[in-house]
């Protein structure tokens, strides 16, 4: 069971200290104060891929579209149990929408022998949730998105649970090769061991630029995209909460008073 797992490096916006400021171009954000991490859902995809490998054998290949800075998240996936990695890196790739990104990923994946391609179901920065499904369409294989459970169900067959609204699981049978987009919470992503980290530092990360992908300039970046983000803006906000001022003793006393007055406590 060979698995390709696609990972993205994203700003750690889960940290409440991370502020997002639009830069002067209006098309980017100030990244100078960001710390970068693996996308949350991709972290679960890496774990799912390694669990399958541990149970059924095979190899896990990590694929990323990113600059050298993304080596950090690639190495961590290798340290956890990935066998090899490909990083697709060319300045022409920037501005790619999910379709262009899927095309770039496919250019590397088509040369790998794999039964399952996994992606995270959604990236925490741009949140399109479309790359995996687009990738399946380009590869001409079936897909299942928002997958929370994966089991092997016979030769070339998987049983997967897709998470729908309200937490309902839709159980499907799907043939391999296929693309699965993995939802968070279906497993417990492991921490890399020191031994794993040491070994990962010796593993090769193959780098492919535009020429190596065999794609043309008009198939990648904004030129290769079907829809382009042209301008960021600060959302209009409605009425904000009444902010209780003071130190914690004061604000908590005010809040306790409000709750009492309203008959809630």
């Amino acid at each position, binding site marked *: 069971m060979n698995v390709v797992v696609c990972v993205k490096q994203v700003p750690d916006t889960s940290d409440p200290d991370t*502020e997002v400021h639009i830069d002067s171009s209006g098309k980017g*954000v100030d990244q100078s104060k960001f710390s970068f991490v693996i996308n949350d859902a991709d972290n679960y995809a890496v774990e799912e891929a390694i669990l399958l490998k541990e149970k059924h054998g095979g190899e896990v290949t990590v694929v990323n579209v990113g600059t050298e800075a993304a080596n950090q998240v690639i190495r961590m996936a290798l340290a956890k149990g990935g066998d090899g990695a490909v990083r697709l890196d060319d300045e022409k790739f920037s501005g790619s929408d999910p379709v262009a990104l899927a095309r770039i990923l496919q250019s590397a994946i088509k040369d790998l022998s794999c039964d399952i391609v996994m992606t995270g179901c959604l990236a925490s920065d741009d949140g399109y949730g479309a790359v995996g499904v687009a990738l399946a369409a380009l590869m001409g294989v079936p897909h299942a998105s*928002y997958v929370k459970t994966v089991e092997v169900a016979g030769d070339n067959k998987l049983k997967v*649970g897709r998470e729908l609204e*309200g937490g309902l699981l839709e159980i*499907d049978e799907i043939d391999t090769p296929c693309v699965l987009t993995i939802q968070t919470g279906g497993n417990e992503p492991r921490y890399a061991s020191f031994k794993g980290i040491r070994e990962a530092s010796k593993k090769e990360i193959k780098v492919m630029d535009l020429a190596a992908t065999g794609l043309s300039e008009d198939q990648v970046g904004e030129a290769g995209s079907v*829809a382009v983000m042209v301008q960021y803006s600060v959302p209009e906000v409605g009425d904000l*909460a009444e902010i209780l001022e003071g130190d914690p003793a004061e604000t908590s006393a005010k809040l306790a008073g409000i709750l009492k007055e309203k008959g809630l406590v």
Partner: protein
Amino acid sequence: MHEIFVLAEHRQGELRDINFEMLTLAGQLGGKVTSVLLGSGMDDFASKLAGFADKVIVVDDAMFESFNALDYQAALAALIKAEGPHLVIIPNTGQGADILPALALELGAPFTTDVIGLAIEGDKPVATRAFYGGKINGRIEFKDGDLYMVGLREGAIPAGEGGKSGEIVKMDNPVAATAANRKFLSYEQPPAGEVDITQSALLVGVGRGIREDKNMPMMEELAAAVGADLAASRAVVDAGWLPSDRQVGISGKTVKPKLYLAVGISGAFQHVTGMKGAELVVAINKDPDAPIFQYADYGIVDDLFKVVPALTDKLKEMKG
């Protein structure tokens, strides 16, 4: 603007609210609004949709008794080719998001997902999407095409009153055979827990801001002092700090308590969708820009590790 197709979403015999949000949006854009209903034996759905649409196309076939993205894709591709709509709106849901990118690529249609706003400029749609967890918005422009497709976020557009009475047109299923390489097997209900938070009058919602499992006892003490049950954001459930039956939001429960006290919750739309119906919302978060403050009646912008123990003590003291 010509015809707008809107894919109807239903699940387990229930027509979902997103239908009326999508149809309301389509109505605002101008043009002919056509709801496309794929299902099996659901005439009552068609008449409900007709109240918001100029036309309802119904394909009634046993193939659509349960959801299979590949069958939906095949049927929609054939219907779209035959009818030639200019815009197709798909729900950005567990079902719709499983269809849209593959369908759009099959048809060569420029598309984008998870839009929160849509307008027509000239003859083309322009979409608004949220980025970085809703901290900023982005304007999305499409490449030129004859057909455009978007996925609409649930809850982004308030449903209108309807007031239409569209014609209902039955069409034959254009798909000969169900997909061989993906099959629907069953639905599995999420496990029920010891507390049904949809029935709780008072809830303390716990978010990622508490940082570590070892801070849960502090939250349990606060909940006990308030007399509330504990609820959680997705991140807290994913981390295993609370069981999944405590999860509030799109993939969890929709709650309507008298009080929702959100602690360390940033207010991503996935969470807010599940709790914005609370009578009183109070948020404690150190980030003054956290979206949760847009939904809260009262807010405390401070370090929760200082405020929560102080509030717990204060409440205990008041109770004597």
